[in-house]
């Protein structure tokens, strides 16, 4: 599949998830139980991107020693939990990371 075709399909999927419920739903087709479980979707999927990107090295193996991303992520998480600020979280993580790799 060419890159552009793949992008178009991804765009279609994104659009359909936005459109389907608005177009098809008669009210209350989803009960509260399904809604409750769906509210955990971010907690279920984002860590699957976060953890491997932090704990795996470039060859795809777990690296716990000499891995500045771990400490930087912990700092970002602490700043994030207390500030509840998206920007502060991202930048505290990046700056800690740079401090570790460039200064120490």
């Amino acid at each position: 599949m060419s890159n552009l075709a793949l992008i178009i399909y991804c765009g279609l999927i994104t659009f359909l998830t936005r459109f389907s419920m608005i177009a098809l739903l008669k009210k209350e087709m989803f009960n509260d139980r399904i809604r409750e479980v769906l509210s955990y979707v971010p907690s279920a999927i984002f860590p699957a991107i976060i953890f491997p990107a932090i704990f795996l090295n470039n060859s795809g193996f777990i690296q716990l020693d000499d891995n500045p991303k771990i400490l930087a992520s912990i700092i970002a998480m602490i700043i994030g939990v207390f500030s509840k600020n998206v920007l502060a979280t991202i930048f505290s993580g990046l700056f800690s990371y740079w401090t570790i790799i460039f200064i120490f």
Partner: protein
Amino acid sequence: MNNKSKNFFKGIKDTSPLMIPVVPFGIIFGVLAIDLGLTPLTTIAMSVIIFGGASQIIFLQLFSAGASSFVILSSVGAVNSRHLLYGTVLSEHLSDLNLTWKIIVSYFLVDQAFAVSNNHFKKNKKDKDKYFHLIGGGLNCWTIWQITTIIGIYLGSIIPEKLGLTFAIPLTFLALLVNDFRKFINVIVIIVSGSVATLGYQIIPYKAYVIVAAFVGLFVAFILTKFVKKKL
């Protein structure tokens, strides 16, 4: 000013504070796309066609890891499943629109626009032009997203690779989860999903670790919510 424009501009105004974090997000996306070898045109095409930050960044992550088209598509679908929830919530307010307007409104249904328009709709149930609020908010996000993508594309060609900016990917998603770190079930789901993805990275075929981990995480959420009363 007629009622439609009033709603439209209210949507722009209401989403504006939420645009502050979108700016670096869009720039990060543009920078990473160029870093990972996409052309400027492909990068812009992604922001116009997909128009979803999390979808676009997970696309980059998997694309650069050499995942198959099927895995990329299903992962994008999984990230987007939260939109089903948005649509469900909004559908009662939008059920009277004709198909064309439903299509237009759907394209603009991004997180920030949903957040403010959902409140607006609840307060203005009887206003039949209220959907213009969502279009205004969505168009505001859209404009900021395209501009910041282009800024990122430009910066991506001058920022040195040594800075390790790909680390911004996990940080961005971490930032989207900060409110969940305080809730017990969420923390368990986060740890389970993250561990499955990390340990399964080498074992799970076709780079499907994101999907597999997400389903395991949701299953855990399904079980735990059955037994633990949710604190509201």
